[in-house]
């Protein structure tokens, strides 16, 4: 899939308009376990993304440091979400196989990262009203705002608005998000 200048995240956000309750996280488990495992899948995707970006040679040193830090934070999110799943009696999803096309240059790499981070932030927001368990909600919230910070940082590196939706961030449904990231999940 060509990523340069792509707008798969925008498509997902547009799809989010409508019935926000129509979430499709049941393939990851029932109720809150399904939601947490859905988030866990997205975190695995992000870790794989940052690992792939580490291979891009044309990034500035400071940017590389920032991306490495973000990747480490996504690893922490994985651990926290897996624990939250287990505390609800569920089984954390395993790491999916992912594949990212080689980024031709630094800008393409940052664009991909920005789109995925913005999408993941919207994905978390899309689930906040569906979670029942308070501890699970607290875990999702504590990650959600950090994903927003990652997205804003990448937008800033690209010279794009840090708040692309304006004063109120837009949610995205699981169906729309999974449709958008499907090309990167290969097994």
């Amino acid at each position: 899939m060509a990523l340069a200048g792509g707008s798969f995240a925008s498509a997902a956000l547009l799809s989010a308009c409508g019935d926000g309750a129509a979430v499709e996280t049941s393939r990851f488990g029932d109720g809150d376990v399904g939601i947490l495992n859905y988030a866990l899948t997205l975190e695995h995707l992000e870790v794989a993304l940052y690992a792939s970006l580490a291979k891009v040679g044309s990034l500035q040193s400071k940017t590389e440091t920032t991306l490495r830090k973000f990747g480490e934070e996504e690893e922490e999110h994985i651990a926290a979400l897996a624990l939250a799943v287990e505390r609800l009696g569920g089984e954390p999803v395993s790491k999916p196989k992912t594949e990212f096309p080689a980024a031709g240059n630094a800008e393409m790499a940052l664009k991909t990262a920005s789109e995925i981070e913005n999408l993941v932030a919207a994905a978390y927001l899309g689930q906040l009203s569906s979670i029942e368990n308070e501890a699970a909600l607290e875990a999702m919230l504590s990650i959600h705002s950090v994903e927003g910070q990652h997205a804003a940082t990448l937008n800033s590196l690209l010279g794009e608005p840090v708040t692309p939706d304006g004063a109120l961030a837009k949610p995205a449904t699981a169906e729309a998000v999974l449709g958008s990231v499907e090309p990167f999940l290969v097994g």
Partner: protein
Amino acid sequence: MKQQGEVTELSRAEALRKAGLAAGALYGLGAIGPHVHRVLAASNIGEGDFLSFSLKFEHLQVSLYQTAQRRLSLPRDLKRLVEVLEDEERQHVATLTASLGEYKGGPPERLAFAFAYRGLNSQFLRFAQEIETAVVAAYNGIIPKMKSKELRELLGAIVQVEGRHAAALRIEGKGEPAPNAFDPGTTQLEALDSVLRFAGSGIFR
């Protein structure tokens, strides 16, 4: 035995109340202190109380960015960012005011805060980062207590934007944009403490 710096919520509430009422340096923040005290004393804290507290912090942010534009000589990029932040915080105020009207039957009192900058952009940046970080933590503490799914979604949409603001300000301050992997929720008192730490810095008049 208590650790150094450990205080009970009650004693902190009392300290905040006294600070808010007695210290001229805390002009404006006194509007938050008594509110927190009242909320803590109430046996039944409802959606409206949480919205009201959130609204006060949003007012504080609007005043902060408004004053910065009036009194500081901001470099072009920072000025542009502060304009965006002020505009978005104003929209948060409008949105929360409308929501609060539904829960309490009318708009809350209008709040104004007074800041006394000494012309230091670094002081402004540090304080603004602190406020945005405190607001994110406060929202993350409040949202799980909201019974209404609509309000949960609304405050979620706001807190993500506050997080983005915090990152943008940290970038301007040459700091790490996302220094921590998690933004755990805080109590309202803890959020207020983050702001009151600046009481002696001369940032308030």
